[in-house]
């Protein structure tokens, strides 16, 4: 029987969606595993989250401390190390918080660490077989993780099938008294909200989205012309913003905007999971990429293997002539 603790991030009294995905992930490791939710925070919001989780988890560990009011990874790590059994498996999401928390947590718990698991293929003895992706999703790998002395594993949000919240009738176990000294060398100051850009890409039904395949800043104009012809708006993937060719408010992805268009034209975009994580509502995805092995072709509805710099102007001409 495998003991698994699932760390559950929350905001405004609401648990993150991944709370519903952990049970499926745990079942794939070991059908008889014991899964315990763990929440940290402070005050009424934390109680609300913990109560809500009892409809999914049989046991919910709650750690309440004013120092945990904001999820500072250093403070959360200290609390978890003091409360959790180090020989167990600990789940967390592979998001900006999980990436901040988990590598260090694995060292302090003297556990193995696997980041960004997208699937599990069961246990053989203490060896857990995990599926991951490397090289921006271009290749997948099987890795084995020796869980004999515990493991910290981050899961890719959205990779496991969510369960329906039911009436698990779980109990809340208050471990606040065990959290220990939570003094930190890193102190949270504030959240700076994203700036609003000149165009709101979240409002457009059709997006012409460009990635690395655009090659040069001047070529953005080619996408702009196609977008105008289609009465669409130009959005982009992260490298275009990093190169400062378009402003941050045009970026689609987990670190950018979440969009829900009807049609998404992915032009020269490889399709990393961080990018696809920003596209909701199941739009019709057209992918044009000169690399036939680009991961985007596994999620697109229509794929075209062409150089976007030649393809887009021809498409623009045709649309204009209609």
């Amino acid at each position: 029987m495998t003991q698994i603790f699932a760390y559950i991030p929350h905001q405004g009294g609401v648990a993150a969606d991944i709370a519903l995905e952990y049970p499926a992930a745990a079942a794939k490791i070991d059908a008889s595993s014991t899964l315990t939710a763990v929440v940290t925070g402070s005050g009424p919001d934390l109680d609300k989250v913990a109560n809500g989780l009892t409809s999914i988890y049989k046991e919910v560990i709650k750690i309440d401390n004013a120092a945990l009011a904001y999820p500072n990874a250093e403070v959360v790590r200290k609390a978890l190390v003091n409360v959790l059994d180090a020989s167990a498996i600990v789940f967390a999401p592979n998001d900006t918080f999980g990436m901040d928390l988990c590598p260090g947590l694995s060292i302090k718990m003297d556990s193995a660490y696997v980041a960004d698991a997208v699937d599990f293929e069961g246990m053989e003895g203490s060896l857990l077989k995990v599926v991951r992706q490397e090289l921006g999703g271009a290749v997948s790998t099987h890795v084995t993780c020796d869980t004999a002395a515990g493991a910290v594993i981050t899961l890719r949000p959205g990779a496991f099938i969510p369960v329906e919240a039911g009436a698990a009738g779980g109990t809340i176990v208050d471990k606040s008294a065990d959290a220990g000294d939570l003094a930190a060398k890193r102190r949270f100051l504030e959240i700076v909200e994203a700036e609003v850009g000149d165009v709101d890409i979240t409002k457009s039904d059709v997006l012409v989205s460009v990635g690395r395949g655009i090659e040069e800043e001047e070529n953005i104009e080619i996408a702009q012309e196609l977008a105008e012809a289609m009465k669409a708006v130009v959005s982009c993937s992260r490298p275009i913003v990093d190169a400062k060719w378009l402003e941050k408010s045009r970026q689609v992805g987990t670190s950018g905007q979440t969009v829900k268009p009807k049609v998404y034209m992915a032009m020269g975009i490889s399709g990393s999971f961080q990018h696809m994580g920003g596209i909701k509502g199941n739009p019709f995805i057209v992918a044009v990429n000169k690399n036939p092995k680009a991961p985007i072709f596994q999620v697109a509805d229509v794929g075209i293997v062409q150089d976007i710099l030649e393809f887009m102007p021809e498409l623009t001409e045709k649309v204009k002539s209609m």
Partner: protein
Amino acid sequence: MEILVCVKRVPDTAENEFELNSAGNDLDRDDLVFSVNEWDNYAVEEAIQIVDNVGGSVTVVTVGDDESEEVLRREMAMGANNGVLLSDDAFEGSDGKGIASILKAEVEKGKYDLILTGAQADEGAGQIGGMLAAMLDLPYASLVNKIEAGDGKTVKVGREIEGGNQEMNEIDLPCVLSIQTGINEPRYVGIRGIRKVASVEIPVHSAADLGVDANVIGKDNAKVKRVDYFVPDLGEGAEMLEGSTEEIIDALIEKLKSKGGL
């Protein structure tokens, strides 16, 4: 400010089409193009800019084989002052914890105020910075997209969080930060710069030089091991449009019309 930046030589995702070997269990490595991990260039640029502002020096370090020396030279051509290659057959097959242990031993040989890594590299784990910080008992922040050098005792850093927002923190020095792309614009490295550092001697430190605990490095001590590579199988995939460009465009336009795209 004395800054150490950990860098890595990786297969270039922009330049390669990744194929499996004939056995189907590894990448076909014969024609792979390698380069400096993209995130690391931002980390080195940030280090150089900090030193330009407040003084100090930038050292780049990597764990790798002889070929990894080229990435150290490239980062030195950018403006890093020193390079160190950590190389030993005993390092081969180390997992993240093993690599972090090797780096920890090098960090402890110097006196650094700031240790930077790229936010992630080819394996996509983003693990080395956080592990290294925990091993050294130093504070850590990941996905850093802003650094304001403070009074020499602390730095103010912005972290990238979901939705384009930024989380500001104050962190005591020394600390470890993993650097996100977009924090700056890494400078162009010309052939002249490369030539300038071509003959600079780069020290190589072995496991014995570093005094690394032999029980945490190498394949035998790795708790996490890659078994194989395979081609992702994510559902049906796209309907691929083929034919002449004109035929493709005609077919695409029909589809776009039916889906509300035109």
